[in-house]
């Protein structure tokens, strides 16, 4: 294993990341070959290389599958990174992107928008459901941030308590909205809460990227400091880490990342828990490599799961959030048992 030998070098990382990047690209491309409607592999290749193919197939591959696969790659990657960051920030291996109430806040916003019949209006690439989801997430992020930051110090315990409590409050409010809303709306609400990448066009990518790119970049610059935090806040401060700044950046960027994804894809579970664990187990806990690997690994996992979810159950389609939990849960248990031995 790489870490027994010792140090992470730039060359080492370049090899690891180009390997992961190539696999990511290959799986992403592969996902374009499957779907509810079958398109001959030869046609997919011709379409991707700009050759002649039936107009209907071009539409399916380029306008439906391609944006969906890209969203799967980005959303899975973002959830993987956010999961790894929250696990480091809380020093808790059970943390997920949804632990700190961000997703529940986003869900509350989305559910409100659906219940209030606000699906139609849009602003730029955003639908009003997405905007409400983002707003709900921001409210929770703001409250948790203020509660967890106590006299300039960020305590993981306060963060956890505040985040989990906000999540529970948001969930209770969702129940309340469901209780008073029109029963016909409940189907849509439930469908949103299952999480999925369906009915997405390139529009969703445009809605996600402006938040995702800066958040991921900020988190990557703090990867080194996150390693230091794993020995505790005082130890990190003694090493020269600006602990309150790193904690605030990790929390805010991780939360924004989660909010961006949840607002377009709903609360997709298990990616953010399982991907960091598996990759940490294989490649070691060094966040400088781990965050990159989680981005690629999460993308591969989610885009792959979504391809199965939309192909295997044709003509209907399984929400990918259901599949990730159904596959991810048992897989995680196996991991737990074999690791404990």
């Amino acid at each position: 294993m790489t870490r027994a030998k010792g140090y992470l070098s730039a060359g080492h990382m370049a090899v690891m990341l180009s390997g992961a990047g190539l696999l990511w690209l290959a799986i992403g491309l592969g996902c374009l070959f499957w779907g509810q409607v079958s398109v001959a592999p030869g046609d997919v290749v011709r379409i991707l290389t700009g050759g002649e193919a039936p107009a209907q197939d071009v539409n399916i591959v380029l306008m439906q599958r391609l944006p969906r696969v890209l969203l799967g790659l980005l959303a899975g990657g973002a959830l993987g990174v956010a999961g790894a960051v929250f696990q480091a920030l809380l020093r808790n291996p059970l943390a997920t992107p949804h632990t700190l109430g961000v997703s529940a806040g986003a869900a509350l916003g989305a559910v409100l928008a659906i219940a209030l019949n606000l699906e139609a209006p849009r602003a730029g690439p955003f639908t009003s459901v997405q905007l409400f989801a983002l707003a709900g997430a921001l409210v929770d992020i703001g409250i948790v941030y203020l509660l967890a930051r106590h006299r300039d110090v960020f305590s993981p315990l306060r963060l956890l308590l505040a985040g989990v409590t906000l999540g529970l409050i948001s969930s209770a409010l969702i129940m309340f909205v469901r209780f008073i809303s029109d029963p016909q709306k409940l189907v849509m609400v439930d469908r949103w809460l299952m999480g999925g990448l369906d009915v997405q066009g390139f529009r969703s990518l445009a809605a996600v990227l402006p938040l995702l790119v800066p958040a991921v970049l900020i988190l990557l610059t703090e990867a080194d400091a996150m390693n230091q935090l794993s020995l505790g806040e005082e130890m990190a401060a003694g090493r020269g880490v600006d602990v309150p700044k790193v904690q605030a950046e990790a929390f805010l960027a991780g939360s924004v990342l989660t909010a961006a994804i949840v607002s377009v894809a709903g609360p997709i579970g298990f990616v953010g828990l399982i991907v960091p664990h598996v990759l940490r187990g294989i490649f070691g806990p060094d966040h400088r490599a781990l965050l990159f690997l989680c981005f690629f690994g999460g993308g591969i996992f989610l885009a792959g799961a979504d391809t199965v979810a939309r192909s295997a159950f044709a003509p209907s389609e399984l929400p990918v959030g259901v599949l990730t939990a159904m596959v991810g849960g048992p897989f995680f248990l196996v991991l737990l048992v074999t690791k404990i031995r």
Partner: protein
Amino acid sequence: MTEPLLSVHGCSFRYHGGDFRLQDVSLDVYPGQVVGIVGPNGSGKSTLLRVMAGLLPPDAGSVRLGGAPIRSMGRRQVARRLAFLPQSPETSFGFAVREVVAMGRYPHLGAFGFLTERDVGIVERALVETASVPLAGRSFVTLSGGERQRVLIASIIAQEPSVMLLDEPTAALDIHHAAEVLDLLWALSRKGIGVVAVTHDLNAASQFCDRVALLSCGGVARTGTPAEVMDQALLSRVYGADVRVLRNPVTSTPLVIVPGRTAHDAS
């Protein structure tokens, strides 16, 4: 006399809204000295150590590192000269021992923290110096208490500070491992590093420290050589107990005991 590496002058500190934990404390740390901070529970030892490390800003007084006010320095700049080892650092995520030691290089490295040849040499020497080479490939969380402490000390050696501050470095160790760690710190001080350790163990302080600061209720009751501070009347007053000071027949340093009630019963 040489300039102090680290100098605390007239420092007072209280936690928000609370009582004073430190009042008008002064202490200098010189190169090549082991300084012990001793005193009863709640006398402000750990608070003083954190003020000295620049982790807690004093309400009054000044802390100077290498002559410059520590508050005017960036955290990394401080960490290149001063290392701080808390009592029981967290241990998450199973980093390998070599990785933990390499983390000590953090304040010296640029973005993303890749080690140069020189950094690798420093880390490897720190492993050798602390006899941790056989542990280097193991996961830090699997180590025993004594091994962990050695590895953590290796990591602050790799940090290449001129001053090391340690909070109860031997608290969780048996007598063999405690002596090993104290020997190691003593050896480091002979290379010119200023070592400051908070400890409850007055006998260890007598044996290994060049100077001892005895704290009492947030103030310095006395600073001096172990022989000057380990004064039977002074210790009895500060600790509120019947303290006896004898002479250690092996090391010729003060030997501090509290006879307790059983001793009276026996006599």
